[in-house]
């Protein structure tokens, strides 16, 4: 019934537009000098509006953005991002000025003549070579950093954690005393062995399954990702870390936490963002928010994709070691 109603409204709008066009001068079809003048000026107005919006966003949306990287590896990401962002910002402001100023400046007039200017190898060389040179710098830094992040071969005494994704939750397993994860495969999933760990593998016995991830400040962590069903993506935005979880294969990512959760909560950007969030939450009468590191799913994985998350805690050595020693081993849990 409602659909019919909407169709009726659409028809009514259509008819009224039809009627309006009878009044409009349909003969006015090609821009004359008046139009050129008006539209040229509108380009200036639009440019002013666009600049105002860009500046507004750059200033006032800073507070919603992610705080400084909470991993040592991510520092260079932030650096490279800032360099890139300043660069594209400058180029954007200049280019948009030219794009919108020229239509105003050179708006057509009957008495004017356009300049016949078909080619200039010098100019073209300039704007081929300049971006090329700038790109060499960006690519160079980017590739160095990429290598830096992805090369996990030289990590000394890392914490090894398996992150296991399934519709619609995360599970995690620590490698235990021997720092080696026991084998896993979906065929071993049974009862409380929800991660499909092969208990026939001796390496698995000291592994520890946990409900939230604890990390030690300053100690490298290597994540091994597996998925039980579909693609998921383990996204840890504060650490500048992300990797897909792919059924049938193990992927990995590593970083070294730089701030404990407590330290991060004191950090000025986080304080400001938290204040903003809590103001909104208070108005809605919801519980106050406290900063926590988080692991969320960032690859469409099904209807409840939007709810998949796991808390991450970063703490000092003592606290971490106390916590991990309190977790039972798989051998104790799975008999």
């Amino acid at each position, binding site marked *: 019934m*409602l*659909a019919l109603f909407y169709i009726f409204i659409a028809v009514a709008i259509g008819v009224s*537009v039809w009627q309006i066009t009878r009044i409009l*001068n*349909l003969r006015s*079809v090609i821009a004359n000098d008046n*139009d*050129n003048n008006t539209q040229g000026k509108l380009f200036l107005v639009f440019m002013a*509006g666009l600049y105002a919006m860009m500046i507004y966003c750059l200033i006032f949306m800073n507070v*919603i*953005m*992610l705080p400084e990287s909470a991993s040592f590896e991510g520092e260079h*990401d932030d650096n*490279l*991002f800032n360099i*890139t*962002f300043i660069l594209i910002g400058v180029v954007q402001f200049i*280019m948009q000025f030219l*794009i*919108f100023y020229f*239509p105003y400046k*050179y708006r*057509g007039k009957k008495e004017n*003549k356009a*300049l*016949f*200017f078909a*080619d200039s190898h010098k100019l073209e060389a300039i704007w081929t070579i300049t*971006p090329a040179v700038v790109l060499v710098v*960006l*690519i160079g830094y*980017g590739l160095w*950093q*990429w290598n830096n*992040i*992805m090369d996990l071969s030289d990590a000394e005494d890392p914490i090894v954690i398996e992150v296991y994704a399934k*519709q619609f939750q995360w599970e995690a397993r620590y490698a235990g005393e021997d720092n080696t994860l026991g084998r896993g495969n*979906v065929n071993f*999933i049974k009862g409380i062995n929800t991660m*499909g760990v092969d208990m026939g593998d001796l390496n698995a016995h000291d592994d520890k399954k946990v409900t939230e991830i604890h990390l030690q400040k300053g100690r490298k962590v290597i994540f091994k990702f597996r998925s*039980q*069903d*579909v*693609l998921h*993506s383990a996204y840890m935005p*504060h650490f500048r*870390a*992300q990797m*897909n979880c*792919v059924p*049938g*294969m193990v992927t990995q990512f590593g970083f070294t936490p730089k701030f404990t959760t407590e330290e991060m909560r004191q950090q000025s950007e986080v304080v400001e963002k938290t204040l903003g*969030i809590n103001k*909104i939450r208070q108005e809605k009468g919801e519980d106050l928010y406290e900063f926590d590191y988080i692991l969320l799913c*960032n690859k*469409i*994985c*099904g209807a409840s*994709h*939007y709810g998949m998350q796991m808390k991450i805690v970063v703490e000092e050595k003592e606290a971490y070691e106390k916590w991990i020693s309190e977790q039972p081993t798989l051998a104790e849990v799975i008999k």
Partner: protein
Amino acid sequence: MSEHHHKETFVTKYMFSQDHKMISKQFLITGIFMGIIGVFMSMLFRLQLAWPEKSFTIIEAFLGTHQTDGVMNPDIYLALVTIHGTIMVFFVLTAGLSGTFSNLLIPLQIGARDMASGFLNMISYWLFFISSVIMVISLFVEAGPASAGWTIYPPLSALPQAIPGSGLGMTLWLVSMAIFIASSLIGSLNYIVTIFNLRTKGMKMTRLPLTMWAFFITAVIGVVSFPVLLSAALLLIMDRSFGTSFFLSDIFISGEVLHYQGGSPVLFEHLFWFLGHPEVYIVLLPALGITSEIIATNSRKPIFGYRAMIGSIIAIAFLSTIVWGHHMFISGMNPFLGSVFTFTTLLIAIPSAVKAFNYITTLWKGNLQLNPAMLFSIGLVSTFVTGGLTGLVLGDSALDINVHDTYFVVAHFHLVMGVSAILGMFAGVYHWFPKMYGKMMNKTMGYWHFWLTMIAAYGVFFPMHFIGLAGLPRRYYTNTNFPMFDDVADINVVITIFAIIGGLSQLIFLANFFISIFRGQKTVQNPWRSNTLEWTTPIEHIHGNWPGRIPEVHRWPYDYSKVDANGDYIHGEDFVLQTTPLKDGEDPS
């Protein structure tokens, strides 16, 4: 022309026409119809994103069993996002844009009587039509249409247990796309053959308008990359229906282990993006070609750096086929491959920059006729730059890690290929409407349409970058599960309001378009005083395009405002048709 004159019935003239001009109209109208569906879907899910728990009668009315009290269900949200992407990318911006203008302009601008094969051309349209119908039918499947994202990554797209849309909805999606690809391939081959073989006397490759170069190269990319998507789709069909394991392995779902062994979803990602990335340029290059033509005509100036423009089209096309991996930096593929793809990806910035600078230089010291088509072309350059620049962030593997699949990406690709291409398409419609229908579109409505569209485009997609930088993942039904995203809620409301403005302002276009077909002002033969061959044909469409002989071409298409030593126009006007012979002593530019 008597040999071409045979009796036409309604069916042969309007339905199974083999005339490229009629086929182009069919593509356009079908594309517009699909566009209405695609845009309307985006309105619906924008409502959900702005007001997650609010009930809307419009949602209640249109989503049927997929909503509860006017609030859409999470799985239909994903379906809407998926079908919106599919329709806009393939049905509107590939078939609607390329199909329309390649068909209309290729024979007219190169001086041919029709496409190399009118019959195949007709087949191409009807396959497109069938695939559109199947895609629309899939919307009414009980479990919902395909919901695995327009990239349909398996296993999600392969397993109905994983998401309801991966049942019959996904099957129809795959069938529809397979037919679509066939249509696209037939069309592309036809375009390539036509441009190679049917150019009129004097129409050297270096005298082709840039639209022709863009359509030609687009067709080449399509022929190179679409078959790979077809094979991916076929293998996925095999996995889904015949129990093979190309993309699936080690899966435990709904309490049981599935039999799949040894396949890899990453393989699918490679195959998909081998088309998926070039697809961006299949969408964009025709828009850039259209823009080149319109900016030159309305600036009354030659396009700056004609040869560099051709070079950059070819460079972009070549590079576009070797960068697909930048969609997969964090897919689990070898990091070394990531390095290679970062390198090739960032190289694309160079030819793109050349194009942008050349457009701006073309405007410089022009005598700009600010017709609606010109405004849309200038708008395209603006959004192309804004969207393109953030590509420097996303193409850099190290930076991509943290913005991958966030709203930063959504903002980036919508501006650089979505908005830009659609602006190019509008520009083309406003510019060549007189050629298609013999009528003119109303310019006042065109102006309103342009400015509202521009305001909406920037209002929607500029703030979206910052939500992405806040770390907000795309394809989330709602952000309310994450208190850390509470502060983006207001921005989402603003974005939705702009999106609604943008969506509604397209009604102005629709009104202008359909009213002008019937009531528009009659056009003159060459309304924009343009140089290219299509404006030498009669206003009334005839089979074979030109009565009598096909004109001969004597010059390149951009002799606008060409003056002699005294500063007077050499040929008395600020434009010179390509068919005008060189005067004694005239420099062939």
